[in-house]
């Protein structure tokens, strides 16, 4: 049983490992070879192999929290730009309730073109465009903040292990950061200096996502004392 996680830089076509392994994300099996399909970092753990990609578009996944921009609406639904190759659909019933009637309710009154909305992917499969919902806590129209777009593949790094990175930034700058899994991020902060610092930190994570000891460097950039572990910062 292989317990240790082995990491390696790979490009498409690179054989990561040969043998009885289970192919997971961004790899495929050719005979007994496991081959990468993306540029990224390969991981082998518990007989499974996957590649964490360093480039690529956002692929919607059910239950993802994302930030979408309204690009238009029909009489029954809004259409969202969700920074993906697909357009997100938010049905009007989701906002107005079940007694929604296209003759009575005006969609524009609630969400207009250009609005940013925190939404959740309610359903998505390859036969249909992603269905969105705002029926949850913390979802809905975003009224204020700075929008930053980063590569969707770098979102997990921005969140960090158990949210360590994002907590570090939020604690140091007093900013509130809403992260969409699709790479759209809204930063809001009452203190303008904190706002700029938080934006800089997010951009720094985006630019240096694949490098080690990133949390340390973000901390020193934000002026947080080094050597503290994440748990003490949380307290």
């Amino acid at each position, binding site marked *: 049983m292989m317990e240790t996680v082995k*990491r*390696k*830089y790979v*490009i*498409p*076509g*690179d*054989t990561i490992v040969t043998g009885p392994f289970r192919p997971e994300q*961004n790899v*495929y099996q*050719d005979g007994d070879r496991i*081959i990468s*399909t*993306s*540029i990224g*970092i390969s991981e082998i753990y518990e007989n499974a192999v996957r590649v964490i*990609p*360093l*480039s*690529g*578009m956002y*692929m919607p996944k059910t239950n993802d929290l994302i930030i979408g921009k309204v690009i238009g609406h029909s009489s029954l639904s809004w259409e969202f730009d969700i920074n993906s*190759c*697909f*357009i997100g659909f938010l049905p009007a019933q989701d906002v107005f309730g079940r007694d929604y009637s296209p003759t009575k309710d005006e969609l524009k009154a609630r969400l207009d073109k250009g609005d940013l909305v925190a939404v959740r992917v309610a359903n998505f499969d*390859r*036969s249909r465009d992603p269905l969105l919902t705002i029926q949850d806590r913390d979802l809905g129209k975003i009224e204020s903040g700075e929008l930053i777009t980063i590569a969707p*593949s770098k979102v997990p790094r921005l969140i960090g292990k158990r949210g360590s990175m994002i907590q570090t930034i939020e604690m140091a700058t007093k900013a509130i950061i809403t992260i969409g899994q699709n790479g759209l991020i809204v930063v809001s902060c009452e203190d303008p200096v904190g706002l700029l610092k938080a934006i800089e930190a997010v951009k720094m994570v985006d630019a*240096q996502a*694949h*490098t*080690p000891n990133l949390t340390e460097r973000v901390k020193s950039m934000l002026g947080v004392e080094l050597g503290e572990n994440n748990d003490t910062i949380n307290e």
Partner: protein
Amino acid sequence: MTQLMNENGIRCDGRSIDQIRNVSIKVGVLKNADGSAYIEFGKNKILAGVFGPRDVHPKHMADQDSGILRCRYHMSPFSVTERKNPAPSRREIEISKVIKEALQPAVILKDFPRTVVDVFIEILQADGGSRCAALDAASVALVDAGIPMRDMVSACAAGKVADKIVLDVNDEEDKEGQADMPVAYMPNLGKITLMQLDGILTPNEYKKCLETAIGGCKQVYEIQKKALMEKYFKNGEA
């Protein structure tokens, strides 16, 4: 007719028969494209930009089961000595098609139904073997865009000049030489995705020419790999 090879086997541009021209690749040169690459292959200067996966327009081209690949190879009016009409010529349409077909086996678009991946290739300066150089750049740009791929595609030409099989035919050798064979190859899978031949070769020459070209593809692959490593893993280790 100019002399293409001297008695010592040195070619008109000073190379030996199994030497490729200088190749350099830069990844991610276009900010507005999802993926891009710039290649200098001898005197060839080529930009490749990849957009997508994105919505297909016109809609009727969309495939419900899979993404589609589109490719445009275009030569700038200033890319050759005599001004070239910027409208797509018969030759450019053909090359667009063969490049698309050479990339098709490498990309995996099953996960992107109803979308398109657009590859735009702009020849800024042409110097023979531009379809191979264009393919090399396009393949790197596709990786940069994060399109899932079975393998990279590396391309290089070989040919027959002054009765000898030579690697990487340049413009002069292409025009005056006896044969030109562009080959695109997936180096890790060992599969050929493009093979054209212009000229006449004996069966033995043909075999040797193909082997020579594949050898060139493998050299180009190392350069492509280095260029990608340079952009993505410049600082730090895994």
